[in-house]
């Protein structure tokens, strides 16, 4: 049996990073909020870079609860879209150049979103990761958690449900 030689590392990285940049960079609100994503293999970590405009309580000061909610929602949507395109991205079925040119996949729609505030968000960078707990054809459930200094002490967590975009081939 002849095994296919593994792809060169820079080709793999270039493809994945280009797809991620297209997915994230195409959304104005993510840029407005100053959110970026760190990638390790298929694992994504959202990074919220602190800025004065993210403050919700100037006296404490603390990050706005809406910013925290938005950060978790952005992380959940990107993680879900990323998982949704991953297989096609790796198999070559997805055209990364078309993606980078703005031909983005349709995004999941949020059905509902619940956020629990565990402690106040400090005026510094925050990080978030999402776990897809159900990836159905039409509905998906996602949990997300955000932390700052200590990953074991999250300052907020969220549960969200999404309506998945209908794939072009599916007829039901």
């Amino acid at each position, binding site marked *: 049996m002849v095994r296919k030689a593994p792809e060169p590392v820079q080709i793999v990285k270039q493809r994945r990073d280009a797809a991620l940049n297209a997915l994230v960079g195409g959304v104005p*609100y993510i840029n407005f909020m100053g959110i970026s994503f760190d990638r390790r293999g298929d694992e994504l970590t959202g990074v919220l870079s602190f800025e004065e405009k993210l403050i919700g309580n100037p006296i404490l000061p603390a990050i706005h609860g809406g910013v925290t909610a938005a950060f978790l929602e952005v992380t959940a949507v990107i993680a879900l879209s990323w998982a949704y395109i991953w297989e096609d991205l790796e198999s070559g079925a997805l055209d990364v150049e078309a993606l980078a040119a703005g031909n983005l996949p349709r*995004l999941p729609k949020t059905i509902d979103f619940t*956020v629990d505030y565990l402690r*106040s968000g400090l005026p510094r960078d925050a990080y978030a990761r999402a776990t897809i707990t159900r990836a159905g054809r039409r509905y998906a459930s996602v949990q997300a958690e955000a932390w700052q200094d200590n990953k074991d002490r999250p300052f907020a967590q969220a549960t969200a449900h999404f309506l998945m975009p209908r794939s072009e081939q599916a007829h039901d």
Partner: protein
Amino acid sequence: MTADKAKIARQFIQTIPHSKALGMEITALGDGMAEITMPYDERFIGDPKTRVIHGGAVSALMDTCGGAAVMSHPDAPAGTATIDLRIDYMRAATPGQAITARAEVYHITRSVAFVRATACDDDTDRPVATATGAFTVEGR
């Protein structure tokens, strides 16, 4: 609500950097009730294909409005913080239209305020989103 308290609540909310960044403005404030509007802005787009505002911006509007409703309640002496907030997205907001949220405190105890909120665009018969949340009652 006393004129003083309304003035303080209004001033406080309008000094919140993030609410300012999103262009929020208070359009009504009463005892345990607040109405805040957020203009359509291309920087807040969440889906470049449909140009619909990101859910996160709607969350920020709901959270600010809920907090404002708590602060303007006669039984809430000082600040508040969100304990939890659930938002149901009923439909996509129409691109180009401002979103207005209206929140009311429907129950308050010594330590917790329970809030309901609705967000609409120009079509006020069909809400864009509804929310329920629990907020802390601080300062007593």
